[in-house]
């Protein structure tokens, strides 16, 4: 985690013609939403995600991550490595709750699906 100093942005937010471009399809987040989040003071992928829901949907950012990182980096004028990445969350694909409920693990650490 690099050290980042944050102070209020002095320049006003400047809209761009392609701000309506849909970037995260799962959560319907546009390029403009991401640019505005950065302008509001958010500096990392994790922060932009929590603020705008980008990468929180069905694909968990696996589709849009590259694009989002580029937009954040270009808005901040920094290298893409300074932006961070989306963190994958289990389950990696949607699971029906009753299936999870059937998974039992006993004290020996053995999964038992007998039920």
């Amino acid at each position, binding site marked *: *985690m690099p050290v980042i100093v944050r102070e209020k942005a002095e320049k006003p937010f400047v809209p761009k013609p392609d701000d309506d471009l849909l970037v995260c399809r799962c959560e319907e987040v546009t390029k403009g939403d991401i640019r505005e989040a950065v302008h509001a*003071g958010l500096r990392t992928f994790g922060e932009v995600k929590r603020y705008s829901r980008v990468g929180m949907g069905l694909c968990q950012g696996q589709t849009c991550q590259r694009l989002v990182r580029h937009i954040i980096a270009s808005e901040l004028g920094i290298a893409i490595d300074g932006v961070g990445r989306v963190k994958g969350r289990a389950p990696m694909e949607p699971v029906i709750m009753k299936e999870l409920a059937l998974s039992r693990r006993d004290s020996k650490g053995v999964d038992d699906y007998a039920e």
Partner: protein
Amino acid sequence: MPNSRLGKRSADVIVIGGGVMGCASAYRLSAEGLSVIVLERDEICAGASGRNAGGVRQSARDVRELPLAIYAVKNIWPTLGEELGVDTEYVQKGNLRLGRTEAHLEKLRMSVTENTEAGLDLLMVTGTEAREICPYMSEEVIGASWCPTDGYANPLLTTFGYYRRALDNKAIFITGITVTGLGKAGGALRKVYTDDGVFEADRVVLCAGYHSRAIANTVGIDIPVEREDEEVFVTEQLPPMFDQVLGTADADFYGHRTKHGSFLLGGVSGLQHFTSNHDGHPADAYTAPSLSRAIIGFFPVFADVKIIRSWSGHFDACADGVPVISNVEEVPGLTIACAFTGHGFGISPAVSLAIKELVTVGESRAIDVSELRYDRFRAKQ
């Protein structure tokens, strides 16, 4: 070596921790015209504030912290979104705390009696009445406590709302910096040591969650907290079903539907103290299945619902289950707000008001926090 590009290294107040408590405190203190620097080891809203189901609950709170919850719900939550310029997604449609056995009902009745005596408006309802409020629950529910003024909000947008307002007020936030200790000068707190040099301030607010303990230890103060892990499911988006916040007498699970349409459903396996590897990835193989069984037991309707994500996080569980919100007499200049035990978010707007008063006038006047002192802990014998 200290890093010169960090700029300013002294302020009227240094806040340690960039979660909801730190951001809200920075907002309130900077609004008083004080210069504020917030130091955060990770990023903004990364700890328990970013891994948070967002309950704004008064019911079933310990009476020592109940005044904070009642104050926040009455005076701050309804207009907070407007104040911060964000949609906090605050919904006030009540909280049902469910019981399936006579022992559960006894526990709920005791809590209702205590909370009522402390001034909260809530009551016991029968299973049938509970199903009239929320028709989806199982017939196994035989009674519940019902607090119509409880609700929920979005902890992420609330935290970032406070953060943005604090920036507007000229507060400076430095992230990716780890506080390693505190130091006195002339009998009062003055220095904040970090892995990137020393900062100085007249006042320090310590609200770093679980990490607060180690930091307070460097000036001889110990708050008995343990790290406790929890997991939360995010379901697929569902049509509107009900808006009540759910909990159970035995804390089997908790949750609610979000504005976005997903349900957030969280809890623990009961084995979490012994199964987590405590390395920053506290998800374990017991919790998700256990939580699923608990949820389906109370709400069969969820059996066929898809879970699309889960997250795990940890909080600072206090020895007696309520936070420390207090100035520290032995260390003039130090204000501690930690040990929130997993239910800090709902009271955070009120806690930040108490913190502001503790810092600026030396005592919390609007809200009684006298039972939440740092020196209340006593050994058994």
